[in-house]
C-alpha cells in the first residue's frame, strides 16, 4: 500500500481519479435529487475519490463507457430469457430439470473481467457460477445440460471482452476454443 502511495500522480492514477470523481458526483446528484447541495457534495466526492484510490489502486483493465449500451441490451434481453426460462421450469408440472456441473476453460484475463463474467453468467438462462479454479477453469452449474451452456458462456465472454476493449487479445484464444 505504501508503495502505491509513493508511486505519485502518474497518468493512470490521474485518469482513475477523474473517472471515480465523475462517478461519485453523478451518484451525489442521483441521491440528493434536484436540490443538490454542491458545497457539501463536491468536497465530499473529491475526498472519497482520493480514499478509493488509496484503498483500490487503478485497475489494469479500463471499461469502455461507449460500449456499455450494447452490453446493457445484451444483458437485458438475456435476463428476460433467464427469468422466463426459470419460470417455465418452475411452473411445469413435470419439473423439467437436468442439472449438471460443467468445467469450462476461460479466455478472459484474471481480475475484473473474470469477475464480471462470473456475475453475468449467474444471471443468464440456466447457468450459475459455482467455483473458480486457478483463475482459469470455471465450474458452472446448469439447469439443463441439453442446452448449449458452453456456447452461451463463450458469447458472454466475447461481450465482456468487447466491454473492456480486449477483442484482439481475445479472438486468438477464442478461435482455439
Amino acid at each position, binding site marked *: 500500500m505504501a508503495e502505491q502511495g509513493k508511486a505519485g500522480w502518474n497518468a493512470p492514477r490521474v485518469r482513475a481519479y477523474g473517472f471515480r470523481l465523475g462517478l461519485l458526483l*453523478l451518484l451525489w446528484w442521483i441521491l440528493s*435529487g434536484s436540490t443538490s447541495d454542491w458545497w457539501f457534495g463536491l468536497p465530499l466526492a473529491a475526498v472519497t475519490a482520493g480514499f478509493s484510490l488509496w484503498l483500490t489502486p487503478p485497475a489494469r483493465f479500463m471499461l469502455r463507457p461507449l460500449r456499455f449500451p450494447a452490453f446493457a441490451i445484451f444483458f437485458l434481453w438475456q435476463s428476460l430469457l433467464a427469468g422466463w426460462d426459470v*419460470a417455465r*421450469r*418452475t411452473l411445469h408440472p413435470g419439473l423439467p430439470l437436468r442439472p449438471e456441473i460443467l468445467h469450462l476453460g476461460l479466455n478472459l484475463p484474471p481480475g475484473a473481467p473474470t469477475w464480471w463474467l462470473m456475475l453475468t453468467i*449467474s444471471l443468464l438462462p440456466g447457468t450459475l*457460477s459455482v*467455483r473458480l479454479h486457478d483463475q482459469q477453469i470455471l465450474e458452472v*452449474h446448469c439447469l439443463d445440460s441439453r442446452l448449449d451452456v458452453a456456447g452461451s458462456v463463450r458469447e458472454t465472454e466475447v461481450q465482456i471482452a468487447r466491454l473492456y476493449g480486449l477483442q484482439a487479445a481475445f479472438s486468438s484464444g477464442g478461435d482455439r476454443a
Partner: protein
Amino acid sequence: MILLDWVQGALLLSGLGFFLVGTVGLLRFPDVYTRVHALTKADNLGLGLIVFGLLIGADSVPVALKLLLIWGLALIASATAGYLVARAARRRGVRPWKARNWEDD
C-alpha cells in the same frame, strides 16, 4: 395517459408474478444449486420489471436514475450471494441433484 397507466400496471403485475414464481421455485426445486437458480433469475427479472414500471411514473431524471441504481445494486448483490452460496455448498461436498430419468448417459 391511460395507455401508459395500463403499461405500468402490466409491468408491475408481471414483476410481482416473477417474484411469486421465484418463491415457488425455491419450494419446488430439488437442491441448493437449482434453488439459487430460481431465486436469482426470477427475482432479478421481477425487480427489473417493477423498476421499469416505476420508471414510467418517475417525475425527474435523478429519481429515474436512482431506480436503475437500485436495480443494478440488487443484481450485483444477488449474483454475488448466489455464487457464494453455491461455492459454499460445493466446498462442503453437496452433491448436485440429478434427474432420475436421465441417468442412462
